[in-house]
């Protein structure tokens, strides 16, 4: 009977193990908040220094793709939350389907993001490689786009990790849903939602400024 050795010896019970794992994920998320925090401080500092350039640069981003990606991520988060709810032996196929939906949406996000990147390349908006902007605002705009590319690339990296994670979880769930996998799915879902939250703020910082002028 594998259930006897289902949890490592430092734990008292499998529930103890699962709660510990979730706590670990929360600590990891706190770390991640500060990882993006450094970038966000830089963003605010330069937005304060170059308000006009930031507004102008922001207008050059593609709000349609940005908003679509936000909707996509919010929906994928919704699907993942549903998948956590649907995790049980009876409904495991629904759970897998929901996860697959989230994976597809996640990949769509990345694809749209790369389309956006290539558009920006064509518009000469990549600092250091090929940057061409209204001469008067070029400094602030470069700083904006450095922030933009670093932040969104880092976020996209998180997305890819998340997609891989969801794929593994979907496979495990499909094969044999156990309480161990429920905990794993739970932690994976926390991570996915966190990546979603990061994007909510990036969206507000990158796409929205300067639209009204």
């Amino acid at each position, binding site marked *: 009977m594998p259930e006897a050795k289902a949890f490592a010896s430092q734990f008292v019970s499998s529930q103890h193990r699962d709660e510990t794992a979730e*706590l670990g994920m*929360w600590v990891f998320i706190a770390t991640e908040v500060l990882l993006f925090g450094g970038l966000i401080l830089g963003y605010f500092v330069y937005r*304060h220094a170059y308000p006009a350039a930031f507004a102008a640069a922001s207008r050059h981003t593609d709000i349609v793709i940005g908003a679509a990606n936000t*909707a996509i991520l*919010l929906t994928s988060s919704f699907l993942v939350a549903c998948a956590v709810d649907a995790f049980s032996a009876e409904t495991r196929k629904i759970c897998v389907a929901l996860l697959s939906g989230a994976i597809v949406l996640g990949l769509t996000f990345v694809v749209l993001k790369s389309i956006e990147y290539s558009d920006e390349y064509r518009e000469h908006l990549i600092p250091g490689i090929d940057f061409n902007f209204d001469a008067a605002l070029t400094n602030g705009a470069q700083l904006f786009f450095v922030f933009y590319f670093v932040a969104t690339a880092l976020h996209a990296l998180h997305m890819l990790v998340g997609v891989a994670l969801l794929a593994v979880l979907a496979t495990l769930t499909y094969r044999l849903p156990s309480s161990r996998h429920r905990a794993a799915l739970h932690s994976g879902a926390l991570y996915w*939602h966190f990546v979603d939250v990061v994007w909510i703020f990036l969206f507000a910082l990158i796409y*929205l*400024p300067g639209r*009204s002028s």
Partner: protein
Amino acid sequence: MTAWRPPLPLVAAWLALIALLGLTVMLAYVPLHMFNAVVALAIGCLKAAIVAAVFMELRHRGRRTFIFAGAGLFWLGILLWLGLMDFLTRT
């Protein structure tokens, strides 16, 4: 397949999030001067709060998880507060 329906709170949260997204995009085009930024960030915070409370199930968690979730934000606040203090008060 057994009958499974998405729980109501999740659906409600999802709808609210999409609605807020629409709202924030719309308000971005309304000239409010400096309040545009405030509104955008306030709606962002609201959305994040919904995701945290409903999707991340924070509303069902105890004090400890709350502290863990809040610690990152609190220290982010320190970083932004003291970091920006220098740049906002330079002469």
